[in-house]
C-alpha cells in the first residue's frame, strides 16, 4: 500500500511538472468517475465471494479442487474461470473464496489464468472490436492449454517449495 501510494505520488508529481495542475485534475476527475462506476461491481464481486465461501461444502471443494484433485481439478478450475461472469472485481474475490474453502494453489491458478486468457468477458467486450476476430480467435485457441499447464506447473513447484504444506 505504501509502495503504491509512493509510486502514485511520484507519477502525479511528474504529470504536474509536465502538464500543470490542469493535467493532474483532469486525470483525477476521470479516475474518480471510473471509481464510482466500478464500485457497485466490486460490491457484487465481494458478495459473490461471501456466498461461495458459505455455500460450497468445504470437503467437496477440497476433494474436487484440492491438492490431490489431479488433472480433473485443474480442468474444473479452468472451466470455472472461463464461464465466470464479470471482470477482476469478480474473479479475484471468488478465487480468494475458493482458496479459503479448500482449493489448492494449482486449481486456483488454473481458474485465474483461465479467466484472464480464455474468459469470454474481456475478449468479447474489448479484444474482438480492437484486435479483430481472426487474431482474437487464434489467440484464444493458442491459449487453451495454458491454464491447465500453469496449474500443473504451480502444483509441481508448490510441493517442492512447501513439502509440509503451505506455511500459515
Amino acid at each position: 500500500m505504501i509502495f503504491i501510494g509512493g509510486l502514485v505520488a511520484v507519477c502525479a508529481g511528474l504529470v504536474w511538472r509536465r502538464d500543470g495542475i490542469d493535467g493532474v485534475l483532469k486525470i483525477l476527475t476521470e479516475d474518480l468517475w471510473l471509481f464510482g462506476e466500478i464500485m457497485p461491481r466490486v460490491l457484487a464481486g465481494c458478495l459473490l465471494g461471501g456466498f461461495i465461501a458459505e455455500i460450497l461444502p468445504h470437503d467437496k471443494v477440497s476433494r474436487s479442487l484440492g491438492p490431490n484433485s489431479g488433472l480433473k481439478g485443474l480442468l474444473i478450475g479452468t472451466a470455472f474461470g472461463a464461464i465466470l461472469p464479470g471482470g477482476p472485481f469478480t474473479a479475484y474475490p471468488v478465487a480468494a473464496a475458493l482458496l479459503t474453502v479448500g482449493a489448492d494453489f494449482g486449481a486456483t491458478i488454473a481458474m485465474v489464468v483461465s479467466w484472464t486468457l480464455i474468459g469470454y468477458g474481456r475478449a468479447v467486450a474489448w479484444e474482438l472490436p480492437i484486435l479483430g476476430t481472426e487474431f482474437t480467435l487464434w489467440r484464444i485457441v493458442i491459449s487453451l492449454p495454458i491454464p491447465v499447464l500453469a496449474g500443473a506447473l504451480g502444483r509441481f513447484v508448490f510441493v517442492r517449495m512447501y513439502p509440509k504444506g503451505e506455511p500459515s
Partner: protein
Amino acid sequence: MNISALIIDVTLWGSVLILGFMAWQRGRVVLVSSVREGSMDFINIVPRIALGVIGSGYIAAVIPPEVITGWLGPDSGWLGVLAAVIAGAATPGGPVVGFSIGAVALKVGGGSPQVIAYVVAWALFAFQRMILWEIPFMPARFVWFRAAVSVPFPFLAAAIAMAIGKP
C-alpha cells in the same frame, strides 16, 4: 452505458441473486453471515481500490504507449518475443490500453507471435493489474507465486503461434 457493460452488470448481479437465494434456502443465518462477510471484504478493499484506480491514471500518464510499441517493433524472432513479454508486464491501464497497443504493433509491422506474446503476458502479469486488483483481494504469496509460474507461458504461446503459422 454500452451494451457489453450492461450484459456484465446483469450477469453479475444475476449470479449474486441466485447465490443469495441459495444461501437463503440454507437458512437466514447463512444468508446474514455471508452478506456480512462480503460487506466486510468490500469495506476493507474500497480504500485500496480507490488508491489503485485513482492512482493508475497517473501511472499510465507517465508511461507513454509509444515507448511500448517501440519495444514491440517490427523486429521479429525470440528477442522480439522477450521484448513483447517485458512490454506486456509493463503496460499500465485497463483493457483498452493493452489491446490497442497490440493493434498498433500489428499495424506497424510487429509479428503475430510477438503480439500474441505481448497480449498473453499482459493478460497474465501486467504489474499494474496485479497491484491494483489481484493483491488487494488475494493473499500476496499466492499472487507472486501465480505470476512466477506464469512466466513461461507467453513464450509457449509465441512458440505455438510460430509453429502453426497463425494468426
